[in-house]
């Protein structure tokens, strides 16, 4: 699989990290969580989703884990992913970087209203 540059984190990779902060999720759940947290603006397709997942796995930011519970046999063959400590740190650093950008934009008064 191709190596994807992760510094700075691409938007899709950042959103995937954020989606995994609370739960271990499989691909479709990640897609839905990203859609929710972006207000429906981002629906990751399979290529974008799994390319990003592969890059995050290779960087050690997420890890593949076994199925969280045996309750749902339909999920037996799905791959679940978990945020690692390195992934949490990378997500935090990216959020701080974005916050810095936001501070600059606010200082330049190009934002109107109560953004973020």
């Amino acid at each position, binding site marked *: 699989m191709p190596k994807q540059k992760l510094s700075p984190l691409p938007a899709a990779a950042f959103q995937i990290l954020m989606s995994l902060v609370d739960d271990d999720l499989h*691909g479709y759940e990640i*897609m839905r969580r990203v859609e929710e947290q972006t207000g429906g603006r981002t629906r990751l397709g*399979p*290529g974008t989703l799994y*390319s990003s997942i592969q890059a995050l796995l290779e960087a050690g930011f997420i890890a593949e884990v076994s199925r969280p519970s045996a309750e749902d046999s339909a*999920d037996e063959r799905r791959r679940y992913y978990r945020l690692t400590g390195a992934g949490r740190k990378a997500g935090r650093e990216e959020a701080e970087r974005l916050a810095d950008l936001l501070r600059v934009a606010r200082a330049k008064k190009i934002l109107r209203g109560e953004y973020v």
Partner: protein
Amino acid sequence: MFDRVVAFLLRLYPEEFRRVYGRDALQLMWDRAGHERGARLRVRLLMDLTRDLVVTLLTWSPPAPELVRIDGTPRFDILTPHRPRPEAIAAGTLASTLMLASFALLFQPRVFPPAPAQLGEGSGGPPSGFEASDSNQQVVVSASGDPSIVDMVAATLKERYYDFAIGQQLADALLAFQKDGHYKLLRDAELADRINDDVYQTSRAIGIPPGQFVVDVVFIGDRTAPIGPPGDPSCMLRTIETLPRNIGHLALDGFMPPSRCQDTVRRAMQAVNNTNALIIDLRANGGGMGETALQIAGYLFDRPAYLFDPRPNTPVPSHTASPVQGSRLADKPVYVLTSARTASAAEYFVYGLKMLKRVTIVGERTAGKMHSGAFHRLDDHFGMGVQEVPPPDNPYPVKGWEHIGIDPDVAIPAGDAFEIARALAESGARRSR
């Protein structure tokens, strides 16, 4: 059609991506398709997928090949150090798509199997079997056993069943049965029945509720048979009469299309409207159109009543159009006669009314054929319905009638059902007066 377009687009992703994540990508699309129904959402899904495909093709950079030199073995290397330009990939993709589409259009009748038809009342068979949406289509078949039919069923399960993991388990179980010689001496309908039995037992073992549709393998026959309802001017209403003691009696051998038979059915219901009790004979009714079954059920209620339809995206309304103006049958006792031949839309009618405790069912357990999946021809002799999308929610504890049939309230041989129902109707009519 939607499934094919999705499968086609997924096949255009880079080979290495498909090798590692092809199954996950397919699962992702099935999950989305299961939750995003309706034309608008499906179009959005296809647009998302197309956009993602283009982005992936343009940004994908395959890893450098690992070249291993083996002495004495000829080797061909790529000399250019540059990967193909994105414009070249896009142009190639477009040209390939156009060529493939042209090829499919030109050679479709011979090269590709017919598109799957949704089974069931809406498009499902004439009283004695299945029916495709093209009523003029002819099926030429001849009897023979096909030892590879189990492989084809297993392959279809793996490829088409809406839950990939379960489809895989069911397919593996069938192949294991085959390896043990389970199907060695079986042919034709016996083979289909045994496969259906094994799928049912396996599906129960992995937690699928009894009665829920999974798969239905069908032996189509050994004759040239027209597919589609016969042009029956009586709309398969075999009997419309009023028996002594003012008992209404309707015998329906099929539920014919409302476009042709709505008025005939309405006149039949008017003919028995003033009776004290009603017998509806479905013993020879193998199915047909759910809309017509719902139309008849509408006369039996004084308010809209819910009838569960197992087909996803069904065109049949979920509730009856009750009360029907002028109907006096809403509070009259109704007896429905059933047999092991009562199937498909007739079972939809019986199941719905049984769950609502509106009728007394007299006769035998029904056939247990929901016909709610998408139908695929396996060869000239066999076909199968398979649940390609998640089944709709069913509020009742018994989740359907596939394979298990519907048990009567009064269990007696079908041949005796009419006389018993008539005696019950006479006593029931006396009580209701």
